[in-house]
């Protein structure tokens, strides 16, 4: 009838269940197929957390599968870095080239020159990389950090355990979100939505503390607008009221807490306890001065929080892409501890890290041992930052400061640091100094553009993978990502690629990888769990309960540490992470904001999802920043005008959206735009907010504590 309009072929309908890895929350999905074509993604009923629903990004996953950015075969760079000029090469040639390069580095005694960047550290695929680095002789496995890392560190310090945070959200009856985008992608996205529905049914109260009227704030029972970056201070202000009024859980604090009262450290000196510090420095009026939250609201909130049966305080800003200041996390966790809801119903649980990847210890040769003994290139685990596991945000500066890049060869898989790292320009400069970069991206992205070789992984609907523990899940879960359709292009599973490289290297490196293929590795790793996993699509232990207080804490004192030697509050002042820029040159503050309608992480938004973005966020190729109507008026701005937004990192041209839903003095910019123009549905539109914000090192953890940057907005 209309020959250039496609007519979809009909056939037999069938459904494949899998887990979508596009979003951070890992939605369980059911893919409807017609014969061999996948035609629709829906939520997978019964999947822990998402249970039949999926986030917009995962729902549009077919646009990734069949999309134009999928890499169709191994590529070798022929042009300049980032120029996007490639030639197709065979898998064998690519693997041989890598093996040859790595072999030479190892012979030259510099195996530590190899680094690996991923977006996860749990599961078999990260484990394969970690094992490869280990037998090869490099300590430099790095992971893009998120709130989960800050939370893990908090649990390490306050509980003394290596665990990840789990939140018994569904049971909470008072939720105090200190900046967390609980409906904007924080945690396991869809689970948060379902939890919110539960709160509504149970008449639980939700209070959102945030500078901007985000979706999370709009749907909360109460929005407390706050000065940007001061959420941790408010937590302590609330703690002040709770302590002062004696509303805290004495059974927990007295019996299972340490450092609440004044305490004596290892140095033999007496230190102020949590109580003293909080009472001294965080009275509602002081806190009100910093946070600009009315003292009465602080008091009311504190009372309501303490009075609730299952109060739960959450932190980690927005979607949780940047870890934030450790102090904030500890303050909020202390607040939870004050009301005794750690490892309790409706509270924060320490959930053991997944431990199903148990492989025989690999044999190491001398070269490997020597390499592993060197300091990590990012400084994690060194004397300066003993607590951190990896500090990717420090890497660019270190590479740029060195004459020759300490990283000589780099593997990147799952991550897109050239887009997600703060101060993108500096990150890209660092990457261009790295002599040899191998990207395992399934889709062309900013980092793959910087690579020398691209060894394309199967797309997320074409491969097997174990997906452990969605963020914030309070019960152990392993999901199975499985092929919905056969690989559409000349790609290999990244696990297989690692096996191939190892085998090409020979020697002990090859010996450490005895599996025939990645699938073989996965099946053997899961052992008895494989069949159930294959049948149900996931393994879940819904009956899991955390350790009771009596044995939950493995700090030196065996108690919950409000304060300890490892980490104590400064006696004076408020622990707000300083941001870059001087107030006189930059009178405003730029903060990024997250939305489910834009993917802010390593995965680029899909055409369907960007179609849902409103025209006062993106219009044509112009990005809008949100600014308070009054602030904007003072700057001489009006709705929709073009303006120059400058920060110490640079100046960009933006358009202005005047809003009544944002605190004065703050400029908010969406995260997830400004991608390289690899395709023109999403690429080349707007500005990447990471270009404008540099990293700020947390003094204790070393992780990125930046929550914004000083900025100025002038009419263009």
């Amino acid at each position, binding site marked *: *009838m*209309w020959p*250039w*309009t*496609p*007519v*979809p*072929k*009909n*056939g037999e309908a069938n459904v494949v269940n899998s887990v979508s890895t596009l979003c951070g929350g890992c939605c369980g999905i059911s893919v409807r197929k*017609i014969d061999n074509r*996948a*035609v*629709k993604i*829906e*939520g997978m009923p019964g999947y822990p957390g998402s249970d039949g*629903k*999926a*986030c*917009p990004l995962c*729902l*549009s996953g077919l646009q990734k*599968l*069949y*999309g*134009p950015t999928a890499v169709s075969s191994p590529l070798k760079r022929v042009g300049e870095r980032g120029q996007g000029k490639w030639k197709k090469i065979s898998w064998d040639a690519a693997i041989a080239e890598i093996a040859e390069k790595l072999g030479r580095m190892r012979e030259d005694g510099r195996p530590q020159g190899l680094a690996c960047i991923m977006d996860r550290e749990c599961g078999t695929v990260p484990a394969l990389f970690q094992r490869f680095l280990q037998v090869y002789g490099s300590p430099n496995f790095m992971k893009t950090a998120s709130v989960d890392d800050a939370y893990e560190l908090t649990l390490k310090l306050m509980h003394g355990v290596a665990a990840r945070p789990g939140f018994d959200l569904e049971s909470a009856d008072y939720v105090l979100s200190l900046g967390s985008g609980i*409906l904007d992608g924080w945690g396991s996205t*869809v689970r948060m*939505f*379902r939890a*919110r*529905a539960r709160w*509504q049914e149970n008449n639980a109260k939700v209070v959102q503390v945030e500078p901007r*009227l985000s*979706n999370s704030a*709009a749907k909360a029972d109460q*929005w407390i*607008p706050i000065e940007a970056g001061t959420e941790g201070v408010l937590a302590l202000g609330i703690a002040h009221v709770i302590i002062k009024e004696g509303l805290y859980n004495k059974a927990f604090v007295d019996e299972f807490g340490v450092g609440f009262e004044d305490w004596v450290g290892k140095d033999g000196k007496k230190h102020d306890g949590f109580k003293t510090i909080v009472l001294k420095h965080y009275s509602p009026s002081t806190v009100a001065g910093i946070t600009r939250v009315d003292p009465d609201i602080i008091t009311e909130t504190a009372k309501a929080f303490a009075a609730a049966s299952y109060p739960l305080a959450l932190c980690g800003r927005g979607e949780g892409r940047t870890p934030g200041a450790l102090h904030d996390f500890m303050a909020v966790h202390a607040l939870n501890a004050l009301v005794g809801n750690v490892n309790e119903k409706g509270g924060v649980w320490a959930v053991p890290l997944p431990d199903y990847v148990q492989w025989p210890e690999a044999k190491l040769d001398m070269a490997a041992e020597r390499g592993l003994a060197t300091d990590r290139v990012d400084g994690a685990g060194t004397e300066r930052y003993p607590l951190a596991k990896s500090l990717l945000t420090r890497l660019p500066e270190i590479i740029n400061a060195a004459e020759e890049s300490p990283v000589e060869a780099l593997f990147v898989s799952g991550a897109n640091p050239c887009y997600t790292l703060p101060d993108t320009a500096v990150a890209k400069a660092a990457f261009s100094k790295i002599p040899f970069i191998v990207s395992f991206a399934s889709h062309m992205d900013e980092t793959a553009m910087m690579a020398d070789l691209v060894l394309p992984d199967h797309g997320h609907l074409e491969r097997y993978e174990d997906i452990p523990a969605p963020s914030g899940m309070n019960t152990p879960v392993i999901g199975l990502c499985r092929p919905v359709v056969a690989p559409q292009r000349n790609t290999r599973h990244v696990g297989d690629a690692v096996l191939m490289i190892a085998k090409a290297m020979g020697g002990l490196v090859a010996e450490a990888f005895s599996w025939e293929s990645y699938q073989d590795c996965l099946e053997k790793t899961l052992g008895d769990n494989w069949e159930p996993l294959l049948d149900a699509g996931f393994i879940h232990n819904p009956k899991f309960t955390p350790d009771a207080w009596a044995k939950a804490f493995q700090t030196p004192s065996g108690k919950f540490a409000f304060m300890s030697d490892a980490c104590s509050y400064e006696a004076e002042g408020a622990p707000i992470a300083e941001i870059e820029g001087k107030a006189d040159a930059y009178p405003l503050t730029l903060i990024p904001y997250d939305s*489910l*309608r834009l993917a802010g992480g390593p995965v680029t938004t899909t*055409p*369907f*999802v960007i*179609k*849902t973005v*409103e*025209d*006062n966020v993106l*219009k044509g190729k112009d990005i809008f920043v949100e600014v308070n*109507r*009054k602030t904007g008026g003072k700057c001489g701005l009006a*709705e929709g005008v073009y303006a120059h937004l400058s920060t110490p990192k640079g100046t960009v041209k933006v358009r202005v959206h005047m*809003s*009544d*839903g*944002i*605190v*004065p003095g703050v400029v908010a910019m969406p995260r997830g735009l400004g991608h390289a123009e690899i395709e*023109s*549905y999403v690429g080349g539109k707007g500005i990447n907010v990471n270009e404008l914000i540099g990293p700020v090192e947390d003094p204790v953890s070393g992780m990125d504590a930046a929550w914004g940057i000083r900025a100025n907005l002038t009419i263009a």
Partner: protein
Amino acid sequence: MKQSQGHNRPKKYGMVIDLDKCTGCGSCMVACMAENNVPFKKDETNKRDSITWMKVYKLTNGKPFPENDVCYLPRPCMHCEGHHGHSPCVSVCPATATDYSTDTGIVSQIYTRCFGCRYCMAACPYHARYFNWWDPVWPAGMEQMLSPDVSVRMRGIVEKCSFCFHRYQRAMDKAHLEGRHELAEDEYQTSCTQACPSGAITFGDLNNPEHKVHQMVKPDNAHGGRPQAPNAFRLLERLGTNPKVYYLSTREWVRKAGDNSIKGEGKAHAKH
């Protein structure tokens, strides 16, 4: 030949959207596009030339900081019943390319019949109808994701939400095979209903007292389907379009934003 299938009790499929639950995440929009082979262009920021059968509006109470409040309002096709089935758009179509079914209450459409006069768009106060200004183009290979259940539309015609009627057809196929003539409530659900992670959308037969939608809004069929539940309202109730999409909100300003009020009190302002 048996004739029994024609004599089922007439249904009135409708939707109830709880605006207190809707978080504006956009899942319904994406699920709708993916289900219904909705085309996409390189630039979709001109919202008056962007096909979104399901569109989420952002409403604000118009108050200054910090009293400002927003509410999201998903707007599918309202499948207006109008007076006796003469919905605003159906009666104006010169080529009978769109129709109102008394069996299901659905405003149906034949894409290959439409010749693109756009009169129905002018008639629809909800802007639920969209014109294919451009040829639909899928990047090479992406046409593989198209569903065979929904006909792909060509340039120059009007399209809109069908309440995923192909899902009804699919469910009825199964029912026929099993010797049934009636569908259970959960057998026919729209894609957006199924996708909404907040559970804000409920879909079913408004005529059936056992269906959730009926219980939630208690439509008064004697008075043009007016909702009798306290927090329920319909968009532009006063115009007499008799829509089958109902909204729920506990917030008064939201309920008032659903219709024009002559005194001008409580009027919402679009967030622009």
